[in-house]
């Protein structure tokens, strides 16, 4: 089977395959242009006759559960990433598959982390055919150098739910690591030694997979409350010694930055939002877990305090900083998709206004609306932006896969999308003639805030008008690009192979761009 075939040029001028790993896919048609028809995918009908009346679905071990689930060549196995770099279960699943001699699996994680470097030998020996999910660190390098057998597919969190719901990705076995579960399979992330907050990324997997295995190190008698994962979807429950390392949900980027340059960018971002009138009593925002984003949240807090205002809700990625704002009363609700530290976990467990959400409620584009588009402000990162405000979040300018898409594409639908980014990073300019990988069409990006000036998308005449006498340094994106090049020199364009190693999906399941193989070093 060819990894990909039938290339076409899509609506943003990118060459993308329409046959991917043997299946047909639709090229990107424009924002809001592709309207699917038909009905959602439905999982097979189950019957209580096949399940124990006492509700006890515990089996001996994970291998037993996988064998009973019918693990065989070519299947799709899904896992979630709420443990982030502290995940232990995905590696265990593929150790078992390898031991059983199963080949050609599709791993469908909600994200992968450096701890999954362990899986590289299985990608090499054909146990795993491909990863459909974010790839960074060692896995990103492996894929970028063209070593993966199948074609990678990168989706946003919302796009992953959409793909499952629409039947684009059929999950054979979903393995859900859970800090607490009962024998029936009800599970949650707020209790137990390995509490990681919530299990929202596994929601779609539990609803649509053929077989669902819950793995936990904390079995409690029925009922496990809250049941973030509903036991009625679950086939087997497995007890292990340790399900994940909760401390490792804290990644290096979840501390407020100490870098004076990034603090300056954060301060300018907050000043811009204030000057543009985007902050008001009852507003809402989402800021990620990066150091700059967190300090922007702090500055927003200062502005709210100064005016005696409150934010109605924050969408998060929570950690101690939004939790402090919630507890201070500056924020009404945290609508949380994943917790980034143990303070976030504690707050979610204790505070009814700290609410767990899922990609279905927050991000799914094939639903009857979602939360992301209701946000007033979203603050995001990017590796590159081009002169038309098109942005890249997955690859470095040298072509290597560097980040997953996460909720990035989904939150672009907020009323105002702001990218606070340094104009260059260790000589590498962020504003390019053309982005290496196009993850967002420029019409979705409203403002770029750099330490050397702010560029507003010409489509946002309202923002241009409101900030023109603000005293902030507003420049065109062209001016910012020239300024960076005057300091750093004009960069050469990285040469990449024609060969495609992965594709980027838009939120509606269409293919927005291809990721090219990185050429070996000279």
């Amino acid at each position, binding site marked *: 089977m060819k990894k990909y075939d039938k290339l076409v040029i899509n609506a943003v001028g990118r060459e993308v395959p329409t046959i991917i790993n043997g299946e047909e896919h639709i090229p990107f048609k424009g924002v809001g242009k592709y309207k699917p028809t038909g009905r959602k995918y439905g999982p097979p009908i189950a019957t209580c006759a096949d399940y124990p009346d006492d509700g006890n679905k515990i089996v001996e071990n994970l291998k037993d559960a996988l064998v009973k689930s019918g693990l065989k060549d070519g299947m799709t196995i899904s896992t979630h990433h709420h443990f982030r770099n502290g995940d232990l279960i995905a590696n265990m699943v593929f150790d078992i598959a390898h031991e059983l001699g199963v080949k050609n699996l599709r791993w469908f994680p909600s994200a992968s982390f450096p701890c999954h470097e362990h899986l590289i030998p299985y990608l090499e020996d054909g146990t795993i055919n491909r990863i459909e999910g974010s790839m960074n660190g060692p896995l990103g390098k492996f894929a970028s150098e063209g070593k993966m057998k199948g074609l990678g597919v990168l989706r946003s969190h919302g796009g992953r739910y959409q793909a499952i719901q629409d039947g684009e990705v059929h999950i054979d076995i979903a393995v859900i690591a859970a800090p607490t579960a009962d024998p029936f399979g009800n599970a949650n992330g707020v209790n137990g030694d390995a509490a990681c907050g919530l299990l929202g990324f596994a929601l779609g997997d539990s609803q649509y997979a053929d077989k669902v295995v819950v793995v936990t190190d904390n079995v409690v008698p029925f009922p496990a409350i809250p049941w973030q994962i509903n036991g009625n979807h679950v086939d087997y429950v497995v007890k292990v010694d340790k399900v994940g390392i909760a401390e490792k949900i804290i990644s290096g980027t979840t501390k407020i930055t100490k870098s*004076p*340059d990034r*603090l*300056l960018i954060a301060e300018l971002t907050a000043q811009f939002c204030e000057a543009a009138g985007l902050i008001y009593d009852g507003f809402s925002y989402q800021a990620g877990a990066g150091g700059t984003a967190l300090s922007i949240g702090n500055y927003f807090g200062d502005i709210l305090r100064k005016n005696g205002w409150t934010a109605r809700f924050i969408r998060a990625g929570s950690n101690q900083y939004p939790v402090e704002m919630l507890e201070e009363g500056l924020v009404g609700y945290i609508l949380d998709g994943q917790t980034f530290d143990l303070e976030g976990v504690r707050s979610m467990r204790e505070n009814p206004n700290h609410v767990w959400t899922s990609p279905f409620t927050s991000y799914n584009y094939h639903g009857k609306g979602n939360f992301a588009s209701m946000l007033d402000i979203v603050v995001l990162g990017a590796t590159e932006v081009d002169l038309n405000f098109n942005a890249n979040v997955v690859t470095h*300018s*040298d*072509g290597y896969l560097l980040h997953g898409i996460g909720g990035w594409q989904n939150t672009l639908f907020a009323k105002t999308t702001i990218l606070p980014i340094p104009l260059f*990073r*260790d*000589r*590498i300019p962020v504003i390019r003639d053309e982005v290496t990988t196009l993850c967002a069409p420029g019409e979705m990006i409203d403002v770029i805030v750099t*330490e*050397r000036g702010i560029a507003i998308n010409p489509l946002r005449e309202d923002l241009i008008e409101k900030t023109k006498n603000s*005293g902030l340094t507003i420049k065109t994106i062209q001016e910012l690009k020239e300024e960076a090049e005057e*300091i*750093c*020199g004009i*960069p*050469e364009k*990285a*040469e990449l192979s024609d060969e495609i190693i992965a594709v980027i999906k838009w939120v509606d399941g269409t293919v927005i761009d291809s990721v090219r193989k990185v050429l070996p*070093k*000279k």
Partner: protein
Amino acid sequence: MNKTGTAGNKGKGIKSDCFVEFELRTDGGVQIELNSKVEAYYGNSNRKLAASVLEFFEIEHAHLTIDDTGALEFVLAARIEAAIKKVINTEKSYLLPQREENKTPTAKGAFRFSRLYLPGNSPKLMINAGIHHPNGLILDLEDAVAPDKKFEARFLVRNALRSLHFYGAERMVRINQGKPGLEDLEFLIPHYPNLILIPKCESAEDILKVNKVIDKLKKQHHIETDVWLMPIVESAKGVMEAYNIARSADNLVAMAIGLEDYTADLGTRRTAEGTESFFARSMVVNACRAAGIQPIDSVFSDVADMEALAANVKVSKSLGFDGMGCIHPRQINVIHQNFAPEEAEIEKAKKIYLAFKDAQAKGLGVVSLGSKMIDPPVVKRAVTTIELAINTGKLSPDWQPATSN
């Protein structure tokens, strides 16, 4: 003479820099081995630059290894030149074009509220320093550079004076103490520094020695722009000589006190209250005021504590200082906010400025406010006070009454 010379930094945490190893050979031509984090974008231009430096110094046979973590061109060129000059003797200097705005002079009485120290051998910290808008940026060749890095730092600082974006900050360099400091000047004066800081100054003689070299170099390189001096008094003896130092030269515009060394010299320790340095600080303020120059306070070293810094600045201003040093960009704003003119100062400046505009409109040569005549320097000072008040957000840019426009 060695056959191998190195320059620059590498290892964990080093970015925007490079480490260069130059080995002079007797045959085999020139080989350049570049290992660069930015190979994909600047590999070719880096190799081209390296080749042109080697050619400039007429190197025919050599092996040059560069470990690059995103060094800007002026950094790369400085590193290669320093490595070469550890091996060969030459009078030549490889100079990249000087940015025109890096030749701009500054006024004798320019505001010097904040001056940010930058280690002279750490390019990463230099590149974005100016965007935080201190009044002055100090490229430090003295205490912030390790002894074995002093040689190469001179090349980096020289190139920074020519190529770095200062974003309007005064271009300052702190030279070394004594003879090495006088040698430093050869790397600086031809490249238009605005101000030289002279550390551990103890007598007027120290100033005269520096000025003698500066004058010689200015003549030699046909430089007519003023080079201001700011001695730093850092010892008991220096404090006792403060007035003689302060009035020792026309180009001496400010004098600073360095409290770390001073308190060590006294045999005591620096405290938050600063009782131990009250005498010295007052001496410096007094000497400076008597000599008509700006008294500048020591740096505040706890970069995490902005409240303590603000308190410190208030004390400093109340003692009569006009500014202080900083070692972290986040300190700049706190210093400006607390040194900024107060309401009464701003009100007075506004009146003077409006009287001046009025006199101008009426074609009067003499400005008066009420019954008092106002000298031109006072008007000038009022204008700068207003500018500063606007810059620090204490006064709206359109403060002038509509009728006066």
